[in-house]
């Protein structure tokens, strides 16, 4: 608990409603340091997993020609560090990929 001179109660700067109906989603390509850190994307919560991968994740992977054609459907996924099976035709928010969630892609099962 913070010690303060007075009441100290402020809304979180990046709370979900600030971005709604979009949300921030973090994506980590595990097992390599080619990408120094996970990426941050702003995506509509209604975007399907398939669209998210093709429209946002794919161009990012293209930073390296060696990752550009990665078969993401063959990868293993984690959501917030827990095992996760994506539903490719379902909206992100519907399957728990909510604001500031971290999706890990572990290439090649």
């Amino acid at each position, binding site marked *: 608990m913070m010690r303060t*001179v007075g009441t100290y109660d402020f809304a*979180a*700067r990046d709370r979900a409603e600030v*971005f709604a109906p979009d949300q921030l989603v973090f994506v*980590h390509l595990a097992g390599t*340091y080619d990408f*120094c850190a*996970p990426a941050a994307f702003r995506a509509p919560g209604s975007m399907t997993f398939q669209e998210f991968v093709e429209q946002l994740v794919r*161009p990012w992977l293209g930073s390296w020609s060696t990752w550009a054609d990665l078969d993401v459907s063959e990868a293993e996924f984690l959501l917030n560090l827990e095992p996760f099976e994506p539903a490719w035709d379902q909206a992100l928010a519907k399957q728990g990929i909510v604001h500031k969630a971290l999706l890990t892609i572990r290439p090649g099962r």
Partner: protein
Amino acid sequence: MTTRKLSTKEMYRAMVRGLDWEPSYQPSEAIFPYHTFEGIKIHDWDEWEDPFRMTVENYWKYQAEKDRRFYAVLDGFTQGQGHLGISDPKYLNAIKLFLQGVTPLEYMAHRAFSRVARFMPAAAPRFAALAQSMDELRHAQTEIHALSPYNRYYSGLHSMRRWHDRVWYLSVPKSFFDDAAASGPFEFLTAISFGFEYLLTNLLFVPFMSGASFNGDLTTMTFGFSAQSDESRHMTLGLEAVRFMLEQDEDNVPIVQAWIDKWFWRSYRVTALVAAMMDYLLPRKFMSWKEAFELYFEEQMLNGLFPDLKFYGIRPPLHVEQAVAEKEYLSHQVYWVLYSFTYAAMFHTTVPSKDELDWFSEKYPETFDTHFRPLWERARGVQEQGGRFYYLGLPQLCQVCQIPMAFTEPGNATKHVQYRSEYKGESYWTCSEGCKWIFEREPERYVQAWLPVHEIYKGNCGGPSVPEVLAWYGDEGDSGELIGSADWRHWHEWHGREMEG
């Protein structure tokens, strides 16, 4: 009639402590309302020691003399085309990092110490803080003057205040200092005077100043000499403030320990930028980050200072073992981050030369050849084919230190550390146990962080696309690859050299 000159001690007693008075029109707590809420108990302010016994008169005399010497060197430098002395165009980026990242902190320190000088309820700490406030203002000015001669010949040195407020990587030092300045006066002194200045000044100062000396940057080196005696006074203030709190009341010990734990980690994370600068932006190298860390932190602080503090019930900071483990890879990871995002850095990076890679292999035998050499060789491969590797996107940032989430587990240089905390139903990610501990101790504070990536996505930085953000930064070719940049071209033109790639 003979007049006797007062001794330094008598002068200090008369002219600093002796000028204080007890207020009678207002209660003391109305005049000094901020020194109790943090929970620090003080019983006798007269116990505060000031080993420098500085008075205003002495202070002006010393500082004026230092300024005279400094500006004489600066004049000679300008007249003698001193800018031609720098070793390599790459070195200019160390200067930029200093001007963009450090100089604005000196100015913030000036402001924050003025506040301590106003609100401490005793004359001795008030005067020590006042002197430091004036030092910091002088440092901000002399740094700007020391670097201004280069501004006539090279780009990227003309807008440091704006960049400090806007550029993504500069939110690391900016948010660190704002965090400290938003604390109460005792925590601020523990944060900046002790955590930053006492524990880590040598790790900041030596790389920049010795780096300047080895790379022909005479003005920065002269600034360093000019500031050195101030820095030792600042370190003394940090140690004295901590010792004083610990001696005044046993109840202060756990509060001070928690501040040391927090501010060691916060300060150490900021020095990550120095680590990258030291190993990668100094063409003529004098010491590796790992060696500097071992000498200035492990030997002088962990083995020198902390055994003495044990007497007061203080142990080494939490998470220090992670910092020690990171010395093997910190500079490589942070420079890889800077290289990856150079398209918006307001300075230039490039792939290290073959000789540099060999130097790293020698200095970092445990990690470099296994983990980092392959990355650089691939980046060089891309460059040789006429391309340039950039990370095509924006990174996830640590909620506390604001550095991209690039840090890895000890002994595993590709396994990222990722911690998730929940607060009021939302997720917050941190890069290390240290940052996680800091977040969870005071989530109210860190949920307000101004994270550049999130602000860009909100459209608060000129717009949501990279070109809009660069326009908002005021980038005029100041970011991007070093080779082929305006700096690169100008350096070769001033030096009358062919441009080798």
